[in-house]
Structures are given as C-alpha cells and as structure tokens.
C-alpha cells in the first residue's frame, strides 16, 4: 500500500524532492482538468504553475489528509480563474465540437433535426459561459471532473452546504437558459412548437 499524500508532503517539508511523488500521482489528472478548461496549448504551462504554487504552499496542506487531489484542484481552479479569456475560447471550441459530435452520440438528438441538435449543444455551452463564475465552477467540477461534494468543498474552501446551494442555483439557471428555446421532442404529424423556434 502506498503511503498517503499527507505523509509524502510531510516528508517534503524536510526533503523537498519528495514532492515529485505528488506530481507523479496527480499530474495527469490535473493536466486533463486544465486541458478541459483552457486552450490545450496553455494547459501545459498552467500545470507547471499549479504544482509550483502547491509546492510553495505545502506547509498549509493538512497532513492528515490521504489525498492531495482536492487541494490541487482548488489551486488549479484559482489558476484557471485568472485566465478567463482562454477559458471562454475553450468553451466556444467545445461548443463547436459538441455541436458536430452531439448528433451521433445522443439518442435524444437523433429525434430532432441535426441542425436543432447542434444548436442545442451550442446553447448549453453558451449558457455555461454566461453563468456566474462560482456556479459554473461547481457545475464543471461535478459534471466534468466527477468530484464529490465534499471534495469540491475542500477544493474551494467552502462548506458542503454552499456547494449544494450553488450547484442547485447553477442547475436552475442552466435549465432556464437552455430550456424553452429548443425543441425537446418531435412527433411526426405534430407541429414543432415546443417553446417556439428561433
């Protein structure tokens, strides 16, 4: 059984090179997180930033924790927040890929015309981009990173209750922004009037 991240970081207080193990264990996960959120070309540089910041702040890590991953996610989320232009570009790029690929992936999409399905994907990503940053952050940590609420609370340094309330506000807002304006069902012989078309 591997020693815990807490023990590794404790060791790195005396022997700094031990911190390399933290990179070994979590580098690829954090790289993928960053590549989802900013231009992939920038993700590499930001990965270095995240781990250098983490190393400098390692004395603030609570050493009884088994995993440093939520803590690293928190540092990475802050780093991403400072690059919102890149983040906005990434969201638009994702929307384009999603619009192209969504049709074949989603059975629900096959029921509607391809153009409508593509537009819906773009709408989801557009809506995500307009959410308050704190709500978007939590939606993405839940949906893209599959973190648990307690991990998100640790990462962002907020109570679990706040995670829940921000998540539910974000979901409601996302639903309001994407619903109503698109055709959710299409039955042959009936007019496509659900919510009205653009």
């Amino acid at each position: 059984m591997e020693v815990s991240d807490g023990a590794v970081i404790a060791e790195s207080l005396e022997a700094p090179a031990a911190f390399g193990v933290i990179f070994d264990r979590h580098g690829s996960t954090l790289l993928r997180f960053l590549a989802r959120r900013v231009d992939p070309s920038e993700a590499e540089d930001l990965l270095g930033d995240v781990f250098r910041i983490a190393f400098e702040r390692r004395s603030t890590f609570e050493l009884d924790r088994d995993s440093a991953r939520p803590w690293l996610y928190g540092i990475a989320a802050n780093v991403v927040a400072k690059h919102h232009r890149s983040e906005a570009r990434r969201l638009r790029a994702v929307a384009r890929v999603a619009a192209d690929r969504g049709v074949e992936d989603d059975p629900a999409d096959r029921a509607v015309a391809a153009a409508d399905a593509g537009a819906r994907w773009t709408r989801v990503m557009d809506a995500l981009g307009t959410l308050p940053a704190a709500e978007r952050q939590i939606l993405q940590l839940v949906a893209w990173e599959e973190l648990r609420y307690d991990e998100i609370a640790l990462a962002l340094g907020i109570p679990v209750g706040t995670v829940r309330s921000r998540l539910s506000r974000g979901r409601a807002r996302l639903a309001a922004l994407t619903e109503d304006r698109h055709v959710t069902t299409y039955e042959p012989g009936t007019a496509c009037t659900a919510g009205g078309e653009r």
Partner: protein
Amino acid sequence: MTEDLEPLRRSRPDRLLPDDPPDPEILVREKARLMMAITGTSEEVVHRRTPAIYPRLAYTDEVAALDFLTRAFGLVERRESRMEHPDGMLAWLEIGDGVVMIGRAGEEHHGLVSPLEAGAPTAMVNVYVHDIDAHYRRAESAGAQIITPLEDMFWGDRRYEALDSEGHRWHFAERLSEIQARRAAGQGRAQP
C-alpha cells in the same frame, strides 16, 4: 438525481474524443521542470522522446499487469505519465530505449482484446535486455510462465520467451557478442 446535467456531462471535451490521452511527454517535461525548481539545480534534464513506434497491449486487469511487468520483467513505469480513468488506466513502461503502453481491453478501448479473452497470444514483444541470465532468473522467480528456455541462438542472441500475467508473449534476448565483451572486461555478473 442529476439527469439535467447529462448534456453538460457529455460535453466534456475529452468525452467527445474518448480515450484520447494528452501527450504523456508533457508530463515528463513538466515533472522535470518542477524538480529543477524544487531542487534548485539547473542541470539539463535528460528526457528521451517517445520512440516513433511503440505498441499498446491490452489487459482485462491492467493494474495487475503493471505490477507484474515491473516486478517480473523489470520494466520501469514513467509514473508521471500514468492516466487514471474511472474505466481504466493507461501506463507507459520503458525498458532500455523502448516503450510499451498498457491499457484496458475492451470495445471502447480501441477494440483490443487480452490473450485471456482471445484464448491465444496475438502479439509478441521483442526486448533486448542487459544481462539476460539475471533477467531470466528474475522473471522465473516472480512466477512468469517460461515458454522457451534460455538458449544461445545461431543468429547471435541468447534468448528466452515468457508469458506475462494475461498471456502476451515476450521474447527477451541479449546479443552473445555483448555477453562475451562483458565477460572479457571481467565484470562478471552485472546488475539485472
């Protein structure tokens, strides 16, 4: 519970392009930079590029395979490159200047199958090692199934063949000329 998040979930960039790992060299490079920053050395970091050709082997239990290959065959994982997904792990293993990638078998993993599922090996990996006799002893004592014993071959190699944890076939060899040169240099037994 969170079905309304399903469109968002499926819009994850790397879901749209499943099983498309970021370049593992990024991780090797960034780890090296981090270690330079941490230790304060300005030493040029030696970083080998991934070779132009390297196979991917599929396993039903890639975690057990990783343990077996490092323990029995002396492969060395580029630990910082390991990708952990809920549905499987990818790892890059080095020996000498060669690299193999290991991952999970399955339809969604490039349609690869493990020899366990196929009922027969479907590929053989050929590896030149240092000190073939020591390598052989290590593999045998770690429980590798030896298929052909150590023998000197007419083309100038000393070799043996073994199966890994799921039946992929591995061919390990050392050039007889290197073995002779080592003996002549009086090194005797080198480390495995």
